[in-house]
């Protein structure tokens, strides 16, 4: 067993800005523990196998430094829950962290 605790889940939930109930802490720690356990099988792979993050055999895919049209501002802001003075409006930032 990999030992994912309720505290680990609470910490992850805070990083992901998710509100998690007490009951969910139990459920998720059990479930995540099982997932980590399963995934830990990759630890059995011999060291001489290089880590793989990309399976497409491509390198150096570069774009020329030429400007392309941006979105009209109205379109950019259209999906925002709130906008003001051409900017995205978001709730106060620091409250939760202080």
């Amino acid at each position, binding site marked *: 067993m990999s030992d994912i605790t309720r505290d680990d889940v609470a910490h992850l939930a805070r990083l992901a800005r998710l509100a998690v109930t007490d009951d969910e802490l139990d459920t998720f720690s059990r479930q995540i523990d099982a997932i980590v356990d399963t995934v830990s099988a990759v630890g059995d792979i011999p060291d001489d196998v290089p880590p793989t993050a990309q399976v497409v055999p491509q390198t*150096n895919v570069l774009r020329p*430094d030429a400007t392309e049209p941006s979105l009209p501002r109205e379109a950019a802001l259209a999906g925002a829950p709130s906008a003001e003075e051409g900017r995205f409006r978001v709730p106060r930032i620091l409250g939760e962290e202080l």
Partner: protein
Amino acid sequence: MTAVVESAPYTVEEVCEHFDPVMGLEVHVELNTATKMFCGCANAFGAEPNTNVCPVCLGLPGSLPRLNGAAVESAIRIGLALNCRVRERSGFARKNYFYPDMPKNFQISQYEDPIVFDGYLDVPLDDGTTWRVEIERAHMEEDTGKSLHVGGATGRIHGADYSLLDYNRSGVPLIEIVTRPIIGAGVRAPEVARAYVTALRDVLRGLGVSDVRMDQGSMRCDANVSLMPKGTSTFGTRTETKNVNSLRSVERAVRYEMGRHAGVLLSGGAIRQETRHFDEQSGTTSPGRPKETFADYRFFPEPDLPPLEPSADWVESLRAGLPERPWERRARVQTEWGLSDEELRDLVNADALDLVADTVDAGAPPEAARSWWVSYLAQQANTAGVALTELAITPAQVARVVAMVAEGTLTNKLARQVVDGVLAGEGEPDEVVAGRGLAVVSDESALTAAVDEALAAQPAVAEKIKAGKTKAAGAIVGAVMKATRGQADAARVQELVLERCR
């Protein structure tokens, strides 16, 4: 939790009686590419909010990043200029955190395999010696959006009711240059920090990869400072000071943190590892937002960007195209132009070195080029309240004026009028000469006619000259200069007067 004791800062000399300072400097540089790092939106400072944005830099679902080749090239050139090695295979990673200035909720950066690493910069210090600062790495990443905090009393983040976000800067190419710990500088640590950032700025400016304007945020320095008790070699707890927006502030921030750390440590307290915010006004630092610890960023390889494998040919061609280092160039120019230390310093302080060099390249002798820029043009810039580089005259135009003086078309006095004309927007020097009728009258027959006319008008004077009283010629010369509105060469007129009276 016990309160952190904030004693009055100690001086660096007092600090160094007990401790050795350790610094790590992280400099972020915005590249001046035409477009952003991962999309074709314009990379421009000062545009209307949210006008240079697209699905990629707004982090909209389904959008995919496409890497800017020019930004990669700049990153490699920066690395080479800092004596770094270029990694044969490097890639991008996602740095995960939630903050409104980062709409994807992750920043694309480089983690384990930065594009360039293991370099150094030999930094010139004030006393003429150099200090080698070792570079750990420089990596590519993207800048974040800009927040405007609304409400509260100060417009700062504390006490704000809400924030407004402009994502024009989101995705602008950034290079982060990270030093290895700088150890052993002692009381000179603040000076070394400033000298390093200054030298780095000069190198980057020479490369032409960034505007390097600390006041506009295109170059930003985070200063990590810690103290270790003298005679030990284990680093103390460090703080990271942000918002250091000028070269002078780099020095002040390091000095303040050294003193603050010593105050806390000597009174038996402990330094908390934290981000601090530098205040330009007071020269002090205060705690910033608590940062995620490193593991909390949950870095993982960016699946949407294939790895980079810069070819040796590409790297070598970029290396071959590197410019001279600024201080080496200054030393060369000093020899070539025969400048004293003071003259060189005046040129550099006046921001005139490039202007004079360009004027010399345009054909003017160094002495004449230098004299125009540091005296007459400097005065005009001063009067107009603009920087020398902002004057409405080009080095090529100055070189043309110098050439006209050398070939006798203009006297120095007329040359200044031509320069005035160029500054006033009357066109090229030759157009000003024609437009204002400023050319020296060098047409011998016209001059001779003017001399004869003046002699005829003053027969008594003419007789005196003919009798050998050559001093009397002055009156005739004066009359001729008046008739030609000052545009004749007085020495030549004098000769002609004497010739005609022989």
